[in-house]
């Protein structure tokens, strides 16, 4: 909700040319090191990956944090089946490889427990793999000018604006993440974090069982698409706690201006089993069921108007 005011505020401020942002040097002293976990188990066929790295000083100029190698990484499901993850290239990227190309690791309804033994400490995380609805359709129409969110120096000035349609399950508390790929490339910027609580944007809202609301449908067009672009939308189920994680990560990435909130902790579900140990973890171990829908932009299939 705060983003709404921020947009309005920035519009005014931008127009008045009064405000300015200057990049500055902040020397933030390095504090203790955290183990950073990045990994989401899915129900898609193929490899599953869990990455381990070490935290850096805030605002560190290095984009390649130290990889945590030589760790023992295992995931166990609630039936006791164990999946072993191996750091094949010694780069902190632990991979589970299926025996066949069709073998899937994740199953909806199962609970997965991650166990990591790294550098003398043992960490653990638990996550349930939740259900996900299928995407009904992707619809697009031609626009001769981009909207506010699609405006940017490197972005197309005209093209196709797309919406996707999917319906939330009945039952409060389904959480989702929407990922968008253009010609196979994920929109991965800070502004591309799209998450849903039931069919709405926020947790305190009640949108159970609805078709995803308009702002979510539209979020698959961070820019206008060109003829023949391949547009793929992935809808992943996430746990409510993972939704909280993404909500706060997004807030922290966009926490600026008059209406900034104090820096807050981004939740983490990976815990050191030795609670008295000083070594803590950050990041998230997630489990997702994934559905996707892909279209190739074709002017003959474009609609004149969205049916909203």
């Amino acid at each position, binding site marked *: *909700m705060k983003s*709404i*005011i921020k947009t*309005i505020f920035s519009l*005014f401020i931008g*127009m008045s*040319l*009064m405000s*300015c*942002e200057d990049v*500055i040097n902040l020397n*933030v002293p*390095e504090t*203790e090191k*955290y183990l950073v976990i990045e990994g989401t188990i899915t129900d898609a066929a193929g490899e599953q990956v869990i990455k381990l*790295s070490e*935290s*850096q000083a*805030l*605002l*560190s100029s290095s*984009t390649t*944090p130290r990889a945590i190698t030589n760790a023992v990484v295992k995931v166990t499901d609630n039936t006791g089946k164990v999946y072993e993850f191996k750091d094949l290239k010694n780069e902190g990227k632990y991979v589970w490889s299926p025996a066949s190309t069709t073998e899937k690791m994740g199953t909806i309804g199962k609970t997965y427990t991650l166990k990591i033994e790294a550098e003398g400490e043992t960490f653990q995380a638990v996550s349930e793999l939740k259900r996900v609805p299928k995407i009904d359709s992707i619809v697009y129409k031609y626009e001769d*000018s981009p*909207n506010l969110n699609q405006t940017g120096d490197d972005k197309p000035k005209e093209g196709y604006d797309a919406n996707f349609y999917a319906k939330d399950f009945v039952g409060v508390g389904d959480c989702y993440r929407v990922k968008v790929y253009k010609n196979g490339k994920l*929109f*991965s*910027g800070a502004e591309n974090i799209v998450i849903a609580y039931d069919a709405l944007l*926020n*947790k*305190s*809202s*009640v*949108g159970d069982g*609805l*078709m995803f*609301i*308009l*702002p979510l449908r539209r979020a698959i067009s961070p820019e206008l698409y060109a003829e023949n672009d391949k547009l793929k939308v992935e809808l992943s189920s996430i746990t409510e*706690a993972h939704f909280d994680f993404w909500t*706060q*990560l997004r807030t*922290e*990435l966009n*926490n*600026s*201006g*008059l*209406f*900034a*909130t*104090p*820096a*807050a*902790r*981004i*939740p983490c*579900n990976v815990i050191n089993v030795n609670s008295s140990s000083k070594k803590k973890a*950050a*990041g998230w171990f997630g489990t997702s069921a994934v559905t996707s829908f892909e279209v190739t932009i074709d002017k003959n299939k474009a609609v004149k108007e969205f049916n909203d």
Partner: protein
Amino acid sequence: MFAQSDKLTVSGYIKDNKNGEGLIGASIFVKELMTGTTTNTYGFYSLTLPKGNYSLIISSVGYRKSIKDIKLIDQNVTLNVEVQEDGQELAEVVVNAKREDDNVQAIEMSVNKIDMKTIKKIPALLGEVDLVRAIQLLPGVSTVGEGASGFNVRGGGVDQNLILLDDAPVYNSSHLFGFFSIFNPDAVKDVKLIKGGIPAQYGGRGASILDVKMKEGNAKKLEINGGIGAIFSRLSIEAPIVKDKASFIVAARRSYIDVLAKPFLTGDNADSKFSFYDLTAKVNYNINQNNTVFLSGYFGRDVFGNDFGFNWGNSTLSARWNHVFSSKLFLNATAFYSNYDYLLDSDLANKRPNNAFRWTSNIENLSFKPDFTYYINPENTLTFGGQVLNYDFTPGSATASSNGDKRTFGSAPKNAVEYSAYVGNEMKVSSKLSLQYGIRFSRYDYTSKEDVYYERVKVGISDEFPSGYDINTKPNDPNKVLQSYQNFEPRFSMKLETSESSSIKASYNRMAQYIHLMSNTAASTPLDVWTSSTNNIKPQLIDQVALGFFKNLGENEYETSVEVYYKDLQNQIDYADRSDLFLNPEFEKDLMFGKGRAYGLELYGKKNKGKLTGWVSYTLARTERLVEGLNNSDWYPNRYDRTHTLNVVAQYEVNKKWSFGANFAYISGVPYSLGKAQGYYEGLPIGITDNGVRGNVRVPSYHRLDISATKKNKKALFGKGESEWVFSVYNLYNRRNPFSIYTRPKEESAQSQVGVVQNEAVRLSIIGSFIPSVTYNFKF
């Protein structure tokens, strides 16, 4: 009652002879007895004296002294006096209706009055005369930063100020977030800020009372004021309805940024609306010597958006009756209505009713409030009265529709009634010592209209429960009071004259505050919700002690004061990490309660007379909180904590044509919080922070110089009236003053490409350049 056969009373009104406005705080001095009194807010006075013949000297700064002889022999005397503005001496720049030695002689301390003529001479942002920005130049008053809504008094939050517009509370004092205040300078008569020693008649907020009185309207002749500035165009009309009996004022302002911006808006933004406006109106009717009625109203709104709309605003309506029961007993009875509301609508044009989102919120007041003043004798003035104040809260109600399916949700309406009664006495113990003492009793009954209510349960801080509390839902009877609170609020002030021109003053007050503004952002936003005290949220209780030394120099040419204060604040509210305060029925889960303390030293020196006038104010202060679970359960500075605040305001009158103004501010930076470390998650920088970090770093300090020049013309545009040009430059030396420091993803890396996004540190300046402006004002 209290018949004193050997004594009689002289009473009446003191007014300005040019426009008939009652003079507030004018002095009536009895030459023979060396005693006297001052007029109240409505210009009324009453003096009970032994039988005899007297000379009354009526005086007030900026007005000619008037001497009236009265015979108080066989009956009470009514004496109404109209005094003439002292237009002869150019030196009298500051025209306000108070005693010259008020600073030293009045019992009140921690009180600042600035009259509109002074405010109008302060160089202003974009040339817009602004009451709230002007009071921020006073000692003990600060703000969280440029453009922030509201103001902070002596370490209190923005919601701890009771802002009264003709006795009706105003819930958001800003237009355009915090850039301009809602008060039209052409319609304001008097401004008084009470920071300490708050008399018993006021209650309901913890830190200060900003009492704004609107003009009554010229009762003698038609008067038109107006102006064209960078932001607003203004027009006000005041005139008698029945000469000397009834008059009115209507004042309107509208911004025209939208009109100017129109050519620069393209595409989706072409239809964008950006405007804010306000309308202030008042009528008064002086029925007879003993009865005057007033009706005043305010309506203002900020409107933003195009297809998507967002608007907010205040409206108030107050009706007052001044009645003189006898020459000793004065009544002001007020009934008021006040409302603050906002609306967000994703489909303002109603193009997509099946896929819309609509969200409203409001707080509404209805109140009746009789205030009596009983002038027992020159040594004792008794005030007593009460108030019934009804609150209707709609914290947030939203409707979302998707493909025609609708869902309604939000936080259910709440209702509360605040009852209060008070009695206070101002007592002259001796020629040197005066006391003001009183007590206020307040009671608050909270009712929830939901069929459930919420109870906080302690579960311990975790990622799932950042506040350490969960919520239990319990059945509620909407017809029963769910929670009541009551408090006695003692008030005390004393003044001891240490010489003809100096005094020591001390005060203590306890304030109970039953409503709270939910705001977890650096500056408060127009969306922030006022919420009731509930079974979970206890009323804030604020105790303040203050001590001061006041001295005037050079025949009252200079006023100086030194004050120190200490405040203890109970039941203060802070917010847990990841708090969700909007449309959330269980928002109380995200609150964290603790206590606060604030203390400071204020130095103030003011020059009242001569070609050069102005003031210097310096504040050294600290405001802190202690909340279990935040900042490792240790004291931390509030987000509006500022160590040093220095303001210099100067106005120089060269001749009748030209005058100049300047002000300089130096203010220490506010605290902010920064994370400890960072990692990468799916290519995005993920900040690593402890739970409940508060204010571990400070924003660099702020300083700024503004100047203005005013050129008065004898004639306005059409050869009539008078006019002036005001030229001003805000932030003269073009400093990029920091509002805040934060991290954000680097722009080049934030583009939609697979890879790693890096964070960078950014300093934000809300006003990052010097801003020149020109304003034209006219008066007929």
